[in-house]
């Protein structure tokens, strides 16, 4: 009987493949149950148990278990059993079978460690059942429940049970999930969420899974870490706890204060003072990550950075703030969830889901957000790392939400001017001049190149030449100018070998190759989570082709003007004397698009198609004009 049920499930998995809803199911989560129990003000426990049918090698993620631990989290036990579809045990695993590693590798020092169990045979299918228990000391973080498995994995059933038997209080926020069932437990309550029948999905460009997938965030009411008590019911209260961690950490030694004042001597404008301080931090300190114990939340003192000239984001931000304070500029230590694709902060659910610290400098007329770990960022440059999201400023009164300003499509601009001079045989002399502004500076790691050597920049120019076989003659990087919305760029001169294939009197040229969407690949399936374009942009290419003598354009791309919700695209070609101009204009608008790519995919596909437009040039001598 058991066997029959399992095979039935397997067939269901395979059938969903055949219906074309998704191209393949790599694993099917039969059940996944998590129980979170609050044992005391600073103690809690997570017990998770799941059973997964693994169908392919890619589905093996459930058999590759990684559990993290540190001073505040302990792995109490793990048990796992791998069986075949008939229920025959292939292998059992226990706590001791895990391999122990230091977590990460980027940090100079961290006490975060990981235990990894690599289980399961490489013959499919098989079933894996895993149960583990983790014990938490300190209640700053309660786990986030995110039951939907990865790409191409289906889920039958998942539950989260939160037990608060002592009635200490627990806060929760569910997104895309039904309200919990509440029942009494001990002196307090038990809450249960469940999710069923999630089909497999495919990830793609601009995914915004958090907008549609079920997730439950948990947070304490009162919490404590290493005996430091706090309250998380409001941002204000949480900010007060952070502020307490910072007590006395922003004090500079007298020589540090003197140095800050000396840097700003003769400068009246607060903005220029901030510039002098920020530049000093960039030039004389470096980012070094040390995350030990409560040090993961508490910065090294400004005094330490002043002496050692290094620190992590917390320490460098704290130090920058101290310097600004020394010259009378108020600023705030600010917690943020950084990253190009980071999930948005839940503004109505105070919790400790931050991964980075910056400094907010409220200036008259405008606010500056300072990324203190970057050596090259101009004053107030927010980039894709921190722009367009909420952050928590720590003020003497407590936490206060602020929104780091977005960049607009008019600010994120790439302008490319290309001149192509066709020489006999089909080679082309190239002159390329590209200007980048705003977040567009990050394209192709250009911003990082600004602090590299000429040799490395030269290699970068050649490696980035996907537009043709470039014989590089010269290049030049432009200086970085501007603050919040900086500009820079580069110029390239060289020969594009075999750029125009020839056939008798005809030359063929594909002009729209200098800016493309060649790396954006959408899945065929429309069965999809919502998408979000966070970083709008405008990219304008003007390609000027000098025709060889006595030649005409035999075939030119017609004018194109696409205007759709996600963006606009146009192609416009004209001739002046013996030069033909091809103008390509591409605009991407910021916004969220509901499930299914719809317009966005259609827009990108049309652009990709038009970018392939080819020009035929005919030498006239055989045609007598």
């Amino acid at each position, binding site marked *: 009987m058991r066997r029959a049920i399992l095979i039935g499930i397997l067939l269901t998995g395979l059938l969903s*493949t055949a219906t*074309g809803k998704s*191209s*393949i199911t790599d694993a099917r989560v039969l059940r996944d149950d998590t129980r979170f129990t609050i044992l005391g003000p600073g103690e809690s426990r997570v017990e998770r148990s799941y059973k997964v049918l693994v169908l*392919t*090698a890619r589905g093996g993620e459930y058999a590759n278990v990684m559990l993290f631990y540190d001073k505040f989290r302990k792995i109490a036990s793990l048990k796992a059993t791998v069986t075949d579809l008939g229920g025959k045990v*292939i*292998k059992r695993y226990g706590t001791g079978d895990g*391999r*122990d*590693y*230091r977590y990460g590798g980027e940090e*100079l*020092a*961290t006490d975060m460690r990981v235990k990894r169990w*690599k289980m*399961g*045979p*490489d*013959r499919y299918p098989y079933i894996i059942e895993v149960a583990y228990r983790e014990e938490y000391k300190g209640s700053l973080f309660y786990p986030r429940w995110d039951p939907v498995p990865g790409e191409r994995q289906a889920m039958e059933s998942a539950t989260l049970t939160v037990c608060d038997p002592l009635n200490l209080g627990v806060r929760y926020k569910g997104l895309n999930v039904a309200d919990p069932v509440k029942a009494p437990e001990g002196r307090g309550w038990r809450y249960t969420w469940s999710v069923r029948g999630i089909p497999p999905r495919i990830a793609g460009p601009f995914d915004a899974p958090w907008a549609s997938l079920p997730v439950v965030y948990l947070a304490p009411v009162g919490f404590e870490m290493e005996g430091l008590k706090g309250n998380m019911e409001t941002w204000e209260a949480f900010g007060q706890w952070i502020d307490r961690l910072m007590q006395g950490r922003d004090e500079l030694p007298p020589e540090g204060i003197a140095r800050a004042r000396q840097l700003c001597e003769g400068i009246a404008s607060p903005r220029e003072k901030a510039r002098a301080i920020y530049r000093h931090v*960039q*030039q*004389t300190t*470096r980012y*070094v990550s*040390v995350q030990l114990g409560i040090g993961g939340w508490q910065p090294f003192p400004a005094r330490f950075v002043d*002496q*050692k*000239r*290094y620190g992590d984001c917390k320490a460098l931000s704290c130090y920058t703030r101290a310097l600004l304070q020394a010259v009378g500029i108020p600023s705030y230590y600010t917690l943020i969830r950084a990253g190009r694709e980071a999930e948005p902060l839940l503004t109505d659910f105070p919790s400790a889901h931050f991964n980075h610290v910056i400094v907010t400098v409220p200036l008259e007329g405008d606010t500056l957000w300072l990324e203190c770990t970057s*050596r090259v960022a101009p004053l107030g440059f927010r980039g894709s790392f921190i722009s367009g999201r909420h952050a928590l400023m720590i003020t003497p009164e407590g936490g206060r939400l602020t929104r780091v300003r977005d960049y607009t499509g008019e600010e994120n601009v790439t302008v490319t001017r290309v001149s192509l001079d066709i020489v006999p045989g089909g080679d082309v002399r190239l002159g390329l001049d590209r200007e980048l502004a705003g977040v567009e500076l990050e394209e192709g790691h250009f911003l990082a190149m600004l*602090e*590299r*050597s*000429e040799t490395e920049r030269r*290699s970068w120019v*050649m*490696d980035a*030449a*996907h537009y043709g*076989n*470039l014989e590089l003659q010269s290049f030049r990087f432009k200086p970085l100018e501007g603050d919040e919305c900086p500009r820079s760029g580069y110029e390239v001169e060289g020969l594009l*070998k*075999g750029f125009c*294939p*020839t*056939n*008798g009197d*005809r030359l*063929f040229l*594909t002009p729209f190759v200098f800016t493309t969407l060649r790396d954006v*690949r959408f*899945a*065929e399936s429309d069965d999809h989570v919502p998408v979000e374009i966070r970083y709008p942009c405008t990219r304008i290419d003007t390609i000027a082709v000098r025709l060889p003598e006595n030649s005409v354009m035999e075939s030119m791309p017609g004018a194109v003007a696409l205007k759709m919700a996600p963006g606009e695209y146009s192609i416009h070609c004209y001739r002046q004397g013996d030069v033909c101009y091809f103008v390509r204009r591409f605009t991407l608008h910021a916004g969220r698009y509901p499930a299914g790519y719809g317009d966005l995919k259609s827009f990108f*596909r049309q652009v*990709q*198609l038009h970018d*392939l437009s*080819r020009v*035929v040039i005919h030498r006239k001598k055989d045609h007598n004009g």
Partner: protein
Amino acid sequence: MNVKCIFDTRLLFIIVATALALPSSAQRVRFKPVTMKEMTMERCDFCPDAKAVVLDRRGEITFTYYPSAGLMYHFAEGVRVKILDASAAGRANVKIRYYSPSASTIENNERVMELKGVTYNLENGKIVTTRLERADIYRTRLNAYTEEVSFALPAVKAGSVIEYSYTRESNYISSLPDWFFQEDIPTLSNELLYILPEYFNFQARMMGEIQPLKREEKRVTTQLNDVTHPGLSVWMRVQEVPPVEEEPYVSNPCDLPFRVEFQLVSVDIPGIPVMHFAGSYRQFNKQLVEDSYFWRPATRGSFPVELKEQVAGMGVEAKIAFLTRWLQERVTWDEKSGITASRGAREILRDGHGSVAEINLALNSLFRQHGLEAYPVVLSTRGHGVIHPIYPNFDDFNYVISAVKTGENAFFLCDATSHTPPGLLPPHCLNGPAWLVSEGGGRFISLETTGGLKQYVSSTVRFENGKRVVNVEVVEQEYAALETRGRVARLGKEGFVEHLKERYAGWTLSNFEFERTPEGLRYLFTLEQEAGAGELLYVTPFPVLPGDAPFKRDTRSALVDFPYGTMMSHTTTIRVPEGYEVEIPEFSEFKFPKRGAACSFVGYMSVEGYVLTLQVMIRQLRYTPDEYPALKAFFDGLSEFSRMVVVLKKR
């Protein structure tokens, strides 16, 4: 099983510990005081755009005897670096890893001591010293075998000179550390001194991009149990060494830096029989054949008796395929590499998993016990460095396969950890020559003959109802088939079709068919596109060729090293519509000098239509930096075929 157990170091340890003692000479590297010239240096003359330069790196290897702990070696290292640009300040974040097994049963151990660090800055014309404090030094266990000491030197900015030194003490005396003369920033001076007791015969092998080197060797006297005994002192120095360049498509980046590697060849202590280690491949082979962690699992093991009946009457290849599959179905590779096995066939069959050595040595034994003449072959995988052609080093080998002799000089190579068809090794194994271990003395064996990337594309282009319709058939064998099969397994068949659709943007793709064949695989599809019906029709005859040439840079300092050769043939037949004639572009055959790679193209009229055939053959697998421009031109030329246009013109 770590390679460190390959010979009984414990025995060696006991013998040498009781037989000899050297004066304690563990000395930290000490530099001369930093100079004003170093402090005011603004750029590196021989590498003007460097952001940092190694002013001096020094190493000293010496042996010491402790009555309590026995014989140790000390490796003292000191580094002084000039920070020319603030962007290079990260050089002052230092991590030193050392062997430190957590299991107390392993006797070999290392520790890092006498760590000192300092930063010098020029302030108001004076040199200001900031020292590394003990509280800012961190020790972390990375895994069961390795620990790390890490620190960040303080007060570093543009213009700083940073300096640190430490000593690593080790009782793992049979393996001395490699010493690097070259790194990713330029080096002004780098020197190594090693003093070895005469009884230890280490071979010091110069590896990587050879640079001019000064070397002095002299006999010295050392103290042994109050008696003076001879020793050997070697000093080497390089100056003005350029940095190692970071380049794409380097299969063994670890082979690039100029360095010296040590291999213990023999220990010859008076009164004790000479102990030989791997000074030559002959000795290396002997060592492996005598090693109970290698030869025993490769030749012995118990397997079910019914297997004998099942393979009875099978031909050699069928038997190989059957036995390989039998083992593959029962054990999974746990991703551990190495060449020695701590468990035999019985244990891995019981546990269902094993290291590459455990699985493939068991495979070798399985072959032997079923009448096949099989030998284990040890090799170094891509990325792990190419093995030395004359001097073997145990640490250089990290993988084992099994070779079944099928003819006088013919072998069938098998790897039961991967899912490649029998006889075709996974590409990570194809990294230069390998060593076949046999009772008779062993031999080098080339793995490069095991297969190639074989792709045969034939397509027919016709014009119908204003559309250009192309029927494409792709036949793939060996590594081409392996790559496509891997992609289909990863993406699923539908995902593979999507991948093709992306590749042929601008076309409508239909009629996809896919089948496995005994030789590999075959797939078919149809592409359609609007063509118009004017005076001129255009055809791109080789759309399947990749349009992007792989080599972008104009010069290169590392070898280009392909794992396997390539044989491609693309044939396109254009059905010329009534009333049209064909104009084809001029293209001539081009070859790589010395015929290592060749590309030929022909076009002719046949009854079917106009036929264009492009053939590409790449035989030579390694290309030196001198050959690189010609290789780049070859691939650039090949990429031009993807853009080639044939014109059909109305008569």
